[in-house]
């Protein structure tokens, strides 16, 4: 069985290699190859899963040691895999959702000339992500960690000819690099503390180390997690990442990669448990982000950006839960999985809508689409109900558990966190309802628009940062680009696209209930993450009730605002908060002011300094000698008598010096 683990990674890796190096001859069948290989690794995952179920909780963890990677004196880095319940969960999620999205992309990217490369990148991503979750030491995890970063870079910037896409890709990679640096330092710390960075040994030895060290490690890991999972303060890249094709947003920036941070924190639970201060920071980050994302989500008119903000916020939930320690880990992962289903579904739905709407992303130009694309509507709707935590659907269970856990944090802390999570729930309900209403209900705002030219003032205040609707038109083949300005003819997407949506919809409906059946999921994970029952200060039903109540409140508000009244095609100026939210609460402006422009000044002045001072010093010396030489040669004035003078003087000096030597 162990030997299969490697294949799990190998299959998509092979696909990537073949597709990227294969050349044009693969253009016709390439996408199917990619999809097939994704499916293969899913099948392998399933096989391993059932094998694991077959074994008792104790020996469910599998190890595979492939080879010793970097053998250096006193330093052991192996390429070895570790498959336990936690990684198993991820494997299934990644390969499952991954396969579905491959399938979806076959249809979505149909008209793109570079579809083969797209699938190559997707496979590359799968491989890297699997490496990340299967690694049995932090260094190998780091490889996967940066690998997914690379894949994300390539896919966000897939339409490289769009400056906005290229910029977004670069931004994503850079921000992630900051997080990676954190992970690297964490690994250094582990090496200097434990002399190793294999999960088993580090985590086993963790509580033995000084709390200061552990806190440092924890914070560094958190930094990494923030980068990858778009948590405050490293969240700014996720919004721009929506420049990528929608399947990418669904797979990487909703379902899998962005949750890697949660995985990292959960995996390193032992370290956090011994470093309460680090844990506190984690929950704070989680809480802040979940509100941040929610607020931003309320103001976005770009459907994908709204969903992105929601992702951010949902991951905030997970991080928060993970920060709560044993009472939260399992719930974090559970929410992660359910979120994987419904968020992927929502994104695919959004993609399908855009597909039918000539890649229009501005929800204010949608409306009343439910009649034109029923399947999309239904699947999207189910996802919607799931995410707002409609009782009975996946989101309800997972989110409710997190809220309970938050309250159980104890004391003021518990109340604050609980309040935050509840508020988040309300906001979620609000912005998701808004999306729903804008997109599928109300009058069909896309019909006979008076001014449909790309020149029209953009709905996104942050036009410069690339979500510009006109720019997107060129995203696909020229034919569609031409249609961008014309009136769209909404139509349902082909089978190959709707199928995955349906499957995911099922997931978003039933997963939660399934997992919660007798706490199946919790017990499944318990051996790895450990589990303690949360003891909230309030009775469970009360909390649940509150959750539902705030949810309904949010829905109601949204309906008052967008359901009853007609929606203007161009966004109203809106309140200060709205404008702030549209600009992602000014975080980009802050980054720009703080780092970009500052850095530019620094580099410019350094270039100048290098030229004038460092280089100038050398050239100056040379020039100095030149000048000295020019002056000295004047002595050679051509008159024999002056030469004689120098000789005479020289002789005198010689004699004097000789005598002097004797004197002293």
């Amino acid at each position, binding site marked *: 069985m162990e030997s299969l683990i490697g294949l799990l990674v190998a299959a998509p890796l092979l696909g990537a290699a073949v597709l990227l190096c294969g050349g044009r001859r693969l253009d016709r069948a390439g996408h199917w190859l990619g999809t097939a290989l994704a499916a293969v690794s899913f099948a392998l995952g399933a096989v391993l899963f059932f094998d694991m179920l077959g074994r008792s909780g104790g020996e469910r963890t599998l190890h595979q040691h492939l080879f010793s990677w970097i053998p250096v004196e006193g330093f052991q880095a192996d390429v070895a895999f570790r498959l336990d319940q936690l990684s198993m969960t991820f494997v299934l999620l990644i390969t499952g959702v991954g396969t579905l999205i491959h399938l979806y992309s076959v249809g979505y990217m149909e008209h793109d000339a570079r579809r083969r490369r797209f699938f190559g990148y997707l496979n590359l991503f799968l491989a890297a992500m699997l490496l990340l979750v299967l690694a049995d030491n932090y260094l190998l995890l780091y490889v996967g960690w940066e690998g997914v970063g690379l894949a994300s870079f390539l896919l966000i910037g897939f339409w490289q000819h769009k400056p906005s896409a290229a910029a977004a890709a670069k931004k994503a990679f850079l921000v992630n690099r900051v997080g990676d640096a954190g992970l690297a330092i964490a690994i250094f710390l582990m090496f200097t503390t434990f002399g190793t960075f294999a999960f088993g040994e580090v985590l086993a030895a963790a509580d033995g180390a000084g709390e200061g060290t552990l806190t440092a490690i924890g914070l560094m890991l958190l930094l990494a997690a923030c980068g990858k999972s778009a948590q405050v303060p490293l969240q700014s890249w996720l919004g721009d990442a929506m420049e990528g094709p929608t399947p990418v947003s669904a797979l990487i920036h909703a379902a899998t990669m962005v949750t890697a941070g949660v995985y990292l924190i959960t995996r390193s639970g032992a370290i956090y448990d011994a470093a309460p201060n680090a844990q506190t920071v984690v929950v704070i980050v989680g809480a802040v982000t979940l509100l941040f994302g929610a607020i931003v989500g309320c103001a976005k008119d770009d459907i994908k950006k709204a969903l992105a903000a929601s992702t951010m916020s949902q991951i905030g939930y997970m991080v928060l839960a993970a920060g709560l320690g044993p009472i939260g880990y399992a719930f974090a992962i559970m929410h992660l999985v359910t979120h994987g289903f419904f968020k992927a579904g929502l994104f695919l739905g959004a993609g399908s809508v855009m597909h039918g709407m000539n890649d229009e992303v501005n929800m204010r130009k949608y409306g009343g689409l439910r009649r034109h694309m029923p399947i999309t509507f239904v699947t999207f709707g189910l996802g919607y109900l799931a995410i707002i935590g409609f009782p009975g659907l996946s989101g309800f269970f997972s989110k409710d558990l997190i809220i309970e856990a938050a309250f159980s944090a104890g004391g003021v802390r518990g109340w604050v966190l609980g309040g935050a999570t509840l508020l988040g729930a309300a906001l979620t309900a609000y912005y998701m309802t808004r999306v729903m209403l804008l997109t599928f209900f109300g009058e069909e705002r896309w019909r006979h628009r008076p001014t449909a030219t790309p020149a029209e003032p953009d709905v996104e205040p942050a036009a410069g940062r690339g979500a510009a609707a006109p720019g997107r038109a060129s995203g696909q083949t020229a034919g569609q680009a031409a249609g961008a300005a014309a009136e769209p003819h909404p139509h349902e997407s082909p089978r190959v696209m709707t199928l995955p949506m349906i499957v995911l919809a099922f997931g978003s409906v039933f997963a939660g209930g399934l997992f919660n059946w007798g706490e199946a999921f919790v017990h499944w994970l318990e051996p790895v993450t450990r589990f303690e029952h949360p003891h909230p200060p309030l009775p469970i039903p009360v909390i649940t009730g509150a959750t539902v109540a705030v949810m309904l409140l949010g829905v109601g508000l949204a309906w008052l605002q967008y359901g009853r009244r007609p929606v203007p095609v161009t966004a109203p100026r809106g309140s200060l908060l709205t404008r702030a939210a549209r600009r992602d609460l000014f975080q980009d402006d802050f980054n720009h002011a703080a780092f970009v422009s500052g850095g530019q000044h620094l580099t410019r002045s350094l270039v100048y300094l290098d030229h004038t001072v460092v280089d100038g010093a050398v050239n100056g010396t*040379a020039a100095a*000698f*030149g000048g*000295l*030489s*020019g002056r*000295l*040669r004047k*002595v*050679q004035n*051509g008159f*024999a008598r*002056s*030469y*004689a003078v*120098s*000789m005479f*003087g*020289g*002789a005198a*000096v*010689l*004699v004097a*010096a*000789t*005598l002097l*030597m*004797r004197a002293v």
Partner: protein
Amino acid sequence: MSATHGSVHSLWTVAAEAPSIEYAQLSPTLLVLGAAVIGILVEAFAPRRLRYGAQVLLAFLGLAGAFAAVVGLAVGGYATEKAAVAGVGAIAVDGPALFLQGIILLVAVVAVFTFAERRLEPTAHGTRVDSFAAQPAAVPGGEGERAAVRAGWTTTEIFPLLLFAVGGMLLFPAANDLLTLFIALEVFSLPLYLLCALARRRRLLSQEAAVKYFLLGAFSSAFLIFGIALLYGYAGTVSYAGIAQVVEGSVPSPSPALASAMASDALLLIGGALVVMGLLFKVGAVPFHMWTPDVYQGAPTPVTGFMAAATKVAAFGALLRLLYVVLPGLRWDWEPVLWGVAIASMLAGAVIAITQTDVKRLLAYSSIAHAGFILAGVVAVTPSGVSSVLFYLLAYSFVTLGAFAVVTLVRDAGGEATHLSKWAGLGRRSPLVAAVFAVFLLAFAGIPLTSGFAGKFAVFKAAAEGGAGALVVVGVIASAIAAFFYIRVIVLMFFSEPSPEGPTVAIPSAFTTAAISIGVAVTLVLGVAPQYFLELAGQAGVFVR
């Protein structure tokens, strides 16, 4: 004259037996001087058309013979165990003397080649001419000169003059008493003064060079002889051994006059300083260097090459012998002074050279800097110091000869194109010549795998061992500065576009070709496999007394 000198001594030596002259040991000098005398006779009696051939042959044979004699003596062990003082104490036949005489003779042979070159100058009325004046006595551009040119005359006297100069140079490093030193100095200086004046082109410059060289040379030799007089006054004798004895105070029974003189070292110190100054003038060390650039530039290039190489060898030889045989007792007095001179020469030479625009002047200043480097080896009063200097002189002299030989090839309408701007892009037009010159420049700069590096390393090593580490550091800095202008020339030759009216490279006859190829060969051999010659110099490192 050594004979007469012997009789001088017999006047006061107790036994009045006839002086015995070891003709065998003196044969090199005698051969060369003899050839010179014959050369004069040839000038006097042989018809003009035969003279050129006869003189070249004669000079070559005389020098070759002398070299053979030197080798014979060295093989015969006179360089080591049989080293002795010959010519009634006038001349030392020992390792350094023979080694330096060998170098001088080789240099002279090569110099004869460059003197005899007759393909570079355009033929004057059908006769091939060398780079020496047709009729030196005639006024430049005057009727007399034109007539001489028309008649196709050439100055074949240059060969006897060369031979006389060589004779003096052979004597100079071997001189074992101050009188011989002085005579030798004049014997090789006077012919050089004349040779400087004999350029065919740019005669005014040539004459000016001669005047400057002559006046300043005479001036310095006046100091030299006065110093000699003072030393004589101090020691009562002019033989090196004698003076050394007095300096060490190991005279059996000093006469009262001698005793009184010995009482005060003033005479000794002043005299020594003046003699050293006379020698420093010949090696062109700062502050006695100022004649060098002008004379090097004005003199006919073959003469410059010969002078630059041979004079340095001879003068450093004499300096070494004086300091190591006569004045070792005064080491603590003269060493610091020479430190100063060495440092001044290295730095001044290197720095001033940076802004030179004329190849010959550039090389002149570089020779000043090199004088400084060699002095660094001289001040290390150790056997390895001597041998390092000997080796350096060997390496340096051939690089210099070769470099000046190349300079004779680069010509335009006005003769040799010595202005650096004319050399732009030479590497494009005739890569071979440029490459050869580059080799010489790199050797001057002391780049590894050239003789220059081996020499520099030997000298600095000796200096460091002699405790002159600071001198080494200065030397290193100086060579870094010096590298700059050597590199500048290379850049000019290879990396700048050739100007359309740039100079042409004349195709030389076998003579110059041979000279240059010998230069290159020696440069590379001494750079890559110096061991044999280092050993030779090492064996030759001991002075007789």
